[in-house]
């Protein structure tokens, strides 16, 4: 390639990164400016323009995409400030899919495909959020928030009652739960537990953990916030219950939770999804504790 062709190639590469409306005009000016610069460099070097001189000139000018960005700054698809959260959410998706696969092995799922869909969805959400923030900075302006530990007393009360009424009641006495919910108008034979499951240590452990969860919400209700011990209790109970639900899924697949095959068939994937959800809650709790901000001066071994 001669010097003219090299410059043409460079100008083309810069222009193709620009909006269509600017391309031709910038290309025309850039070509003229590079011609001026090349002539000056050749004169300074005391020889006719050659490939070496033109490549040195273009190297100094910069990578075409970078030069184009100086001419026209495009908004990032995902703002650099959001990259950390994008990665956290991406990783959360990968962990969720892995847990779902482990706890619901019978479900037909293509994890690679699901993960790509998750990444695509995240990219769209982050891009729209970034676009909206640039468009309406006031609407997306920072607002003070209470910390992760804060829980409104109303929500704590609701969580306590809901945990006691739904998971604990339904788990401890499914037949009575169905009869109570439907005022005895629905036949509850379908949710009769097998003797082996009803008397199993796993089920007893589940009832105890759900009971402890109710007590923990009661403590949060009194204190109006999570204390460090209740944060760890939250993570431990959700982790334990998540693993237990995963194990129940395996028992249900073996047809040994309910006396009817249909109930076991319906329950097995529900146990898997529930187990995944609970484990995610546990991981979230652990992550919150791990990432807790504790303002303190950096030590010599930490980056400043």
């Amino acid at each position, binding site marked *: 390639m001669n010097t003219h062709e090299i410059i043409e190639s460079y100008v083309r590469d810069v222009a193709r990164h620009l909006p269509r409306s600017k391309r031709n005009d910038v290309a025309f000016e850039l070509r*003229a*400016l590079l011609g001026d*610069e090349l002539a000056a460099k050749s004169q300074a070097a005391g020889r006719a323009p050659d490939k070496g001189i033109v490549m040195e000139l273009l190297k100094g000018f910069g990578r075409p995409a970078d*030069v184009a960005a*100086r001419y026209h700054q495009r908004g990032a698809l995902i703002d650099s400030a959001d990259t950390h959260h994008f990665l956290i959410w991406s990783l959360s998706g990968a962990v969720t899919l892995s847990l779902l696969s482990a706890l619901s092995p019978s479900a037909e799922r293509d994890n690679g495909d699901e993960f790509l869909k998750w990444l695509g969805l995240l990219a769209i959400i982050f891009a729209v959020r970034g676009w909206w923030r640039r468009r309406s900075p006031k609407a997306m302006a920072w607002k003070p928030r209470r910390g992760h530990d804060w829980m409104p007393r109303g929500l704590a009360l609701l969580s306590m009652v809901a945990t006691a009424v739904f998971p604990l009641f339904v788990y401890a006495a499914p037949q009575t739960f169905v009869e109570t919910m439907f005022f005895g108008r629905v036949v509850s034979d379908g949710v009769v537990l097998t003797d082996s499951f009803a008397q199993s240590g796993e089920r007893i452990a589940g009832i105890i953990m759900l009971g402890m969860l109710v007590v923990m919400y009661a403590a949060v209700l009194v204190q109006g916030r999570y204390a460090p011990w209740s944060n760890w209790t939250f993570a431990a109970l959700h982790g334990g219950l998540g693993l237990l639900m995963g194990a129940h899924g395996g028992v249900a697949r073996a047809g040994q939770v309910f006396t009817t095959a249909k109930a076991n068939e319906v329950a097995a994937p529900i146990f898997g999804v529930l187990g995944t959800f609970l484990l995610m809650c546990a991981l979230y709790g652990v992550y919150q504790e791990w990432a807790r901000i504790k303002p303190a001066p950096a030590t010599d071994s930490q980056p400043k």
Partner: protein
Amino acid sequence: MGERDNTGLAELRRGVLVLAVLSRLRTPQYGYSLRQALAEGGMPIEEGTLYPLLRRLESQGLLASEWNTEQSPRRYYRLNAEGERMLAALTEAWREQVRVMNSFLEGRAQ
């Protein structure tokens, strides 16, 4: 001058680049001639920085431009009314900054 010194100098120049460019565009200039004028005046600017800056200043409504294609095609830039107003405002701010910085550097400010 070390690499760290060069970085500091580049950042210092970046801060006053717009003012320097506006000050040189009271008379029409095309890209290369402006770069030469700045370099001869003691402020060498990389070509890859200066030429896009001219476009940005024009899109911000501070410069007017027109093509001269009689010989080699060249786009000439000059200040418009808004550019003149901005130059005056930045000049005043610059003088105030120089006064403040001088007082800092000479240890007069408390």
